[in-house]
């Protein structure tokens, strides 16, 4: 730790005393003396976006390891593992996302194998709890461990907000396979999002694309003009419903009711009645299970909504949901999952990957983002391998800043989710979204594969419609 930082802490100490002294009012010898010693510690208050962490490890006398960059570096002893970690939502109601993602990481590790002869260690899986608190405490725990080069996570954007600066201060890169919040990267117009930091990347799509593409499909392809939207109070669903509404209105459509349910709601009659009052032709409900199940199950019983077009999103693209008879004829927008033909970095095809997933974990993927996380892990391992300098005795030296720079410059990286190219704000994903239509609840996998619309990001950040298949 630098001297400056230490002095800052002393300053806080003084504050403690000042507060106590203010309260007592009679004991003020302590703070005058300590305050005097800290009179000149105000210097370093300007925020410095490029971190000022120094090397984690002691330096060897020879040319190896090379001099560390501004973010420091990690020296890995011969035979010692390369340390990476995961920080995903693996408990409570969103566990189906985070657990799925961790499996993606595990499969990637399996495929990638050793990094220049060093095994890769995942350590204890941390839980982001899908909340800022979880993101912060998980990130702190990871940053406290020695030699962690990169972290795969978080599942929820809300957890990423406080986690990113913690990793940033430790010089650790964070790659998410499922954060979609636009402010974490950019608006595609060259403006950094306000929560963007330069140690953050993601392979998932940006909300701006999905909302807009979903709206274009609704307006142009389905011919819907009046729609209701439902979110569930989650920042993700709320943001998605919002950006859908924005584009839909721009196109000339009308959002007659924008409302929401609570995640634990069961009786959907009131919310559906509220929407029915607006006489929409379609309902966009980008929410999760089980609320999404309740909505499709109960919408048939609402007078006025008999002919309405239901339209969900990726939170519901699960075999469970698709096996409900009521979901036949319902469209779902989501990240493009037409991966089957894609081959990942190691040449593993997605089809194969899913088969191995099922064999290893006893069930089919519970969500889509294992694939994005698989790619994120691959990217990280590939980057580590590429920037690592081998020492004379089998050691490895990885410079953190070099690793970050390498990741930010990745282009045309073969992933199972498509070709990945990172832009200057860390958006690496193909940003291709698709709309699927469930036709047969007895064969949910067919429904999940039944793509009827694809769209992606154009050069200027606009949505461009892509050919199917």
């Amino acid at each position, binding site marked *: 730790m630098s001297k400056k930082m230490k002095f800052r*802490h002393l300053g806080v*100490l003084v*504050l403690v005393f000042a507060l106590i002294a203010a309260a007592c009012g009679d004991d003020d010898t302590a703070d005058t003396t300590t305050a005097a010693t800290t009179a000149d*510690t105000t210097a370093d*208050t300007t925020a410095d976006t490029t971190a000022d962490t120094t090397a984690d490890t002691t330096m060897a006398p020879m040319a190896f390891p090379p001099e560390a960059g501004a973010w420091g570096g990690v020296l890995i002893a011969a035979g010692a593992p390369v340390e990476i970690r995961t920080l995903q939502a693996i408990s409570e109601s969103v566990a189906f996302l985070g657990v799925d993602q961790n499996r993606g990481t595990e499969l990637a590790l399996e495929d990638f194998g050793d990094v220049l002869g060093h095994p890769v260690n995942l350590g204890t899986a941390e839980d982001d709890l899908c909340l*800022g608190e*979880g993101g912060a405490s998980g990130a702190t725990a990871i940053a*406290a461990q020695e030699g962690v080069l990169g972290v795969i996570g978080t599942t929820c954007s809300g957890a990423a*907000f406080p986690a990113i600066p913690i990793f940033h201060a430790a010089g650790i890169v964070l790659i998410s396979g499922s954060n979609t919040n636009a402010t974490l990267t950019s608006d595609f117009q060259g403006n950094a999002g306000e929560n963007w930091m330069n140690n953050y990347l993601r392979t998932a799509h940006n909300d701006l694309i999905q909302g807009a593409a979903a709206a274009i499909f609704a307006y142009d392809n389905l011919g819907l003009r009046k729609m209701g939207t439902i979110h569930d109070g989650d920042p993700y669903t709320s943001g998605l419903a919002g950006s859908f509404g924005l584009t839909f209105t721009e196109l000339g459509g009308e959002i007659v009711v924008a409302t929401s349910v609570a995640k634990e709601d069961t009786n959907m009659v009131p919310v559906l009645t509220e929407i029915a009052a607006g006489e929409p032709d379609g309902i966009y409900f980008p929410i999760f299970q089980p609320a999404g199940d309740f909505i499709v199950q109960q919408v048939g019983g609402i007078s006025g909504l008999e002919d309405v077009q239901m339209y969900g999103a990726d939170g519901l693209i699960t075999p469970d949901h698709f096996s409900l008879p009521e979901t036949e004829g319902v469209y779902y927008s989501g990240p493009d999952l037409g991966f089957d033909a894609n081959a990942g970095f190691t040449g593993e095809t997605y089809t194969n990957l899913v088969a191995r997933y099922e064999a290893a974990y006893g069930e089919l993927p519970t969500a889509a983002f294992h694939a994005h996380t698989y790619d994120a892990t691959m990217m990280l391992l590939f980057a580590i391998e590429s920037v690592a300098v081998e020492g004379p005795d089998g050691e490895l030296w990885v410079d953190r800043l070099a690793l970050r720079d390498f990741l930010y410059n990745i282009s045309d990286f073969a992933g199972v989710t498509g070709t990945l190219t990172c832009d200057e704000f860390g958006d690496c994903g193909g940003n291709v979204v698709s709309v699927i239509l469930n036709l047969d609840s007895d064969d949910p996998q067919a429904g999940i594969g039944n793509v009827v619309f694809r769209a992606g990001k154009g050069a200027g950040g606009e949505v461009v419609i892509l050919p199917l298949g």
Partner: protein
Amino acid sequence: MNPLAATSQDSVRSAVKVGLLGGLGYIFVSAVGMVEGLGEKNVIDPILSLGYLMLIWVGLWAGHRAGAGALPGDGVSVVGRVWLGIVAGVTGGLLASAFLIWINTFVVREVFTNISPALIELLNLRQGLGTGVAVAIGGGALLGGAGAAIGTLTPLMRRALTGSFLWVLIVGFLEVILSQIFREIDLGVFLAFLIVGVTSWILLRNFGDSQRVLLGGLLAAFVVGVLVSQALSEVNLGLRFIPDFAYINRVGGRALTLSAAAIVFLVAFAATVLFDGRRRAMRARLAALEPAERQKWAFGLVGVFVGLGVFLPMILGSVVNELLSTTGLFLLMGLGLNIVIGYAGLLDLGYVAFFAVGAYTMAILTSTSTARNWAPELSFWEALPFVVLAAVVAGILVGTPVIRMRGDYLAIVTLGFGEIARILFLSEWFSGVTGGALGVTKIPPIELGFYTVKGTDTQAVLYLVLAFVALAAFVSYRLQDSRIGRSWMAMREDEEVAETMGVNIVKAKLLAFVMGAILAGVGGALFAVKFGTIFPASFSIIVSITVLVLIIVGGMGNIPGVAVGALVMIGILGGSNSSGLLREFAEFKLLIYGALMLYMMLNRPEGLLPSKRLARELHQEEAVQDAWLQGEIEQGEED
């Protein structure tokens, strides 16, 4: 000769009963997934995983209980007790075997999700059913016997044995934290610790009776300590070889090596045994002191602890600091709720509302997010008065309608208010101000003029939180011991009578609500700054319940008790929205919460560190029995 002949029928019967309970325990921890879920975490490599530890603990417990079940008057010998333990262990083992046979024969995973092939392998030690059954019964016998045997040891040996084992577990468990401490500790803070510690030891020994000398000396030592710690902060103490030696990398985290475990055990054991005499002498001396003398000593000790405590955040490392700041935030709320429930007796289950009000007020007034259409962008200190104001208003708004409601009505109505607050913050209706589901982001750090406390700077945040906690504890303490505090107490005892004694119930209740709201509101404000972003999901009912639980587990009405409660429930177990020291148990946290609450309420309802008053209240009968002849007194009326 039948070794059980000497024991009574009753002892055997109760041993069997305990054994059956132990067997149920085996089934329970297996079936709810603890054995498998914790199986990956090795505490001591390669012999002991956390999952097995759960089973071992069950066996030892059963044996111990069975052995202790024999009454002293029974004339049961040591051997007899051990046999009782073995009986219990075998009984439990048999029940466990039945379970094993069942899950090996039928596939029950369709219903009981956690009885997976992996679990069965673990329980069978990967050797097939025969081994599993043998281990269950044999291991049961062994552990049962051992558990009972431990019970027959002298208290000192027993303490040494269990204590040392516990130390091994702790050291194994806290791998991340201990490694960080050893790796990062610098000479400066080490010396500072030494200086303050040694000075205070000398002072306490020689000048224990002169508060002035004591305080002056402590202060001087403290100042020197601060200077030294700053001057030498860049010199690493070079202790990283210790964790490098002690821990080994394994899937699922680093584990303690066998040799390190042995060293820890031996050191702890030796220390307990060797220092026992000294400890006892010390305790005897303390007991022999006059109350006034003792108070002086206590005063001095508190000074020492504060002096040393101030340096702790520099040593403990970011993980512990982070945990402690979260604990501190909950402690702030706990102190507030302690006023409302502990002092004034108002059962508020919607306490999170005030926390949310504080957090949102701070967030809205300070956020620099460009996405917000109304952002005054005040600084922390400018916004703080508004936070207090908002808390006061919220306290009055919630407090007034419920002033005439009692106990249970109060509980459900306040619970309702808590939910109302959360939903309103979440709602589309107010999303223009509150951000709705998207929350508020970009809450700036705190400017102190000479230093900026960023949320990511765990050490600074901890100091800040502790400062506010100290302030809150100070205020609580002063209020408790005052005219206001007495009127709250009287109101808690009997509202009607308090009123006829001249206490204005409306004022007293509102003041309690408002004080509680202010503390929670400030806690919320710090929460907002610490995380830099807030979402409505952080303010659910569960937070209210967590705070309630922590003050009750800790000891209601007692400020140190609340602190202990916060430490145990939030720091160690992990709060509703955060993981604690035992992060491996995260998945079972709430299950453990529930079990702990049940255990506490049934066995120690006054909490871990109760106020004298509450302890007396809950053990009135015993107190009265001690003090008076039974016939002379009647119990006070309830209600």
